[in-house]
């Protein structure tokens, strides 16, 4: 126990060590977090009237980001599967980075739900009268927390073993890894059911929502990992095997292709039938009665995804710069599509046919940025500490001074 506390304190201290770039990055993030806290305090005092949400469009940017992040949290699984099911050893260490990202993503997702609440002070009502299993939101609370703890356990255990220079005992983590795989799929599915279960919102009330969620998440998550690993490769001594990046690249390509296919299927059904239920889709892609706020967004998303997919299909994307560009494009594309493109149009027009558009306010954007910055801060620290542990530079039998020396040398 004492040993473990010492491990934690060393990790904590290590998170303050780095070069100028590291400090600049962390300093920048901290500033954005503070701006976000400031904006949230304003919201807390004045109510959700500080956001662009209305009775007509009652969920907006927060829930959009929440949805996107739940998807991202599955990134880990896309690495875990090749490692544990296909015994692809090269990816073994990389799994940890994926799972660390899952932790950060879930933390952000939960923060987004929390800032969306009108009465966060009554959060404990969830513990006192939990409408399970009827409300999909209660399912979501369960699966998200469960996923968070699973990943905390797996990463924590593996990293601590490396620190203690012990071989991790399979019994303590392999079963959890398999549970986590199934669990990761469940967090998407439940989050998709949150929307698709609502009969009064035809735009969501479609069986394809859950598969679309999975496909787009399995593209955006690994794409984000490619970017992280490349940063690690550039900024630290950590060796990222080329093969790992290429495995991720093929995962991203396939997932993105499936995701685009599902998008087309859905658009076809909505537009070819031309039923009254297609009003929201019409609003999203073409605008409705001259209201076109989302049209430029969705078409940029489609353009970004199409170009990214085209690049990924060619051998050209083996070049790091090209691969990174494609990854950034598709992450942005999916962020728009899964976020604004999935949440907002379901509210336009309202079930009574009124058309009210939604534009997030500045304050809402600040809160959102603050949460993103906080998540990245968490992720950076986790990665910052993990790299030396896995590289054997931070172990229990070393003095911390040695670690520091090694860090400065690295």
């Amino acid at each position: 126990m004492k040993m473990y506390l010492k491990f934690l304190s060393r990790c904590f201290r290590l998170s303050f060590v780095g070069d100028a770039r590291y400090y600049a990055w962390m300093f920048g993030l901290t500033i954005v977090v503070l701006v976000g806290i400031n904006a949230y305090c304003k919201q807390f005092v004045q109510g959700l009237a500080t956001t662009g949400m209305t009775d007509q469009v009652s969920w907006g940017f927060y829930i959009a980001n929440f949805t996107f992040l739940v998807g991202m949290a599955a990134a880990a699984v896309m690495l875990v599967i090749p490692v544990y099911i296909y015994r692809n050893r090269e990816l073994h260490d990389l799994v940890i980075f994926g799972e660390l990202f899952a932790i950060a993503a879930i933390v952000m997702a939960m923060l987004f739900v929390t800032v969306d609440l009108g009465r966060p002070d009554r959060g404990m009502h969830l513990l006192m009268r939990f409408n399970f299993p009827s409300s999909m939101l209660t399912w979501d609370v369960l699966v998200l927390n469960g996923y968070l703890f699973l990943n905390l356990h797996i990463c924590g255990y593996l990293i601590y073993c490396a620190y203690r220079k012990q071989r991790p005992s399979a019994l303590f983590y392999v079963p959890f890894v398999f549970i986590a795989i199934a669990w990761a799929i469940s967090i998407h599915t439940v989050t998709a059911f949150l929307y698709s279960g609502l009969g009064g919102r035809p735009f969501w009330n479609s069986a394809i929502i859950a598969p679309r969620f999975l496909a787009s998440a399995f593209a955006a998550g690994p794409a984000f990992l490619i970017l992280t690993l490349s940063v690690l490769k550039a900024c630290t001594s950590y060796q990222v095997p080329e093969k790992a990046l290429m495995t991720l690249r093929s995962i991203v390509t396939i997932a993105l292709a499936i995701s685009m296919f599902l998008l087309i299927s859905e658009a076809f059904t909505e537009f070819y039938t031309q039923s009254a239920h297609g009003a929201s889709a019409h609003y999203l892609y073409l605008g409705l009665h001259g209201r076109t706020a989302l049209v430029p967004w969705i078409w940029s998303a489609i353009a970004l995804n199409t170009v990214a997919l085209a690049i990924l299909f060619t051998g050209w994307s083996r070049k790091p710069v090209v691969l990174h560009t494609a990854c950034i494009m598709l992450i942005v594309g999916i962020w728009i599509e899964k976020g604004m493109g999935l949440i907002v149009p379901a509210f336009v027009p309202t079930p009574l046919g009124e058309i009210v558009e939604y534009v997030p306010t500045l304050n809402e954007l600040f809160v959102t940025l603050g949460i993103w910055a906080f998540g990245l801060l968490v992720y950076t620290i986790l990665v910052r500490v993990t790299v030396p542990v896995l590289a054997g530079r931070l172990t229990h039998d070393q003095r911390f001074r040695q670690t520091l020396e090694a860090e400065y040398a690295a």
Partner: protein
Amino acid sequence: MKDVRIWDGPSAATDEAQTASNPTRRSFLRIGAAAVGGMAALAAALSPLRELDPEDLPDVEEFLQKHYKEMTAVEMEAALARIRANVADRFGVEPTIRDPKPLDGVEFVYALNLSRCIGCRKCVHACVAENNQSRSPEIQYIRVIEMPRGTLDVEKGDHHYDRPQVPDTAHFYMPVQCHQCANPPCVKVCPVEATWQEPDGITVIDYDWCIGCRYCEAACPYWARRFNFAQPSLPADELNPDMSYLSNRPRERGVMEKCHFCLHRTREGRMPACLEACPTGARKFGNVLDSKSEVSEILKTKRVFVLKEEVGTLPRFFYYFDERYPNTIDPEALVIAEQLREEEGDAFGAMDVGAAGRLVIARASGMSTEETCA
């Protein structure tokens, strides 16, 4: 790698313990400065909290109050006393607040004669006055839609019709409010059971339990729910002191509300405020389990229909057209409209505004109200 360091680097420290417990002066100052700077920045970030009105915060009793269904009679009395004191404090009026229970053998339904509705929106405003809704931004439970004849597709309707004279005979008018569904999706989705269906068919909300997630608002197919995005404002002289726990007591910021069939009236034998306000008698309300009630009669003899039957919500709110006037407004209602115009003059035409929607939209988009209506 060596540009900035918090610890003074390996050469200055001789061992870990020393580094930890006896950092050199320079690094100590640096950490100190960073800590002070950080605290100052955090304090600055938190500064909007200074404007928090302590009255807006829940007091201890409210914070610890149990869910409506878990409260004993004594606890409910205490809760009512607390609310009474709060209202007296805030509005300077002692309200008669109580908690009327559903009556045995009663299931309320509403029936609305679309041939008689003249679209004057008197029900909308009577409801606001009765139920202590926020006046700014104004929250309204009833939305009257001006519909072209020949369709029931609400997307073809106009919510913001603003005519100097109603009714316009090329249209019919369809008021929509909570339909008190027998299979309510809003109840199903609430994560904390803050909203539920009572035995008399009314779906209610415990305003002290709602966490404000707005899932129910997304789930309702009739757009019947309203959320307090801002602190509700209600002038003291407009307060209706006749109130109950589950219906029209003043709400707070961050909770959901909606039509509750005026349960503080109807459970005590009176009619809903919207019905009493309707000048043409288009609205009928009563107990469907009583076979001799007017609503039972209507359900038996008229060709009633419900909105969006396909979503399976089983509404307790029925519409019908008078068979005698399938394509016009009931001439009797037109006469009443004419009389009202004479009596009330401009005030009658001014009853039009769907103010709630517009105010909120205007705030959200930074537009003026005029622009939003356009």
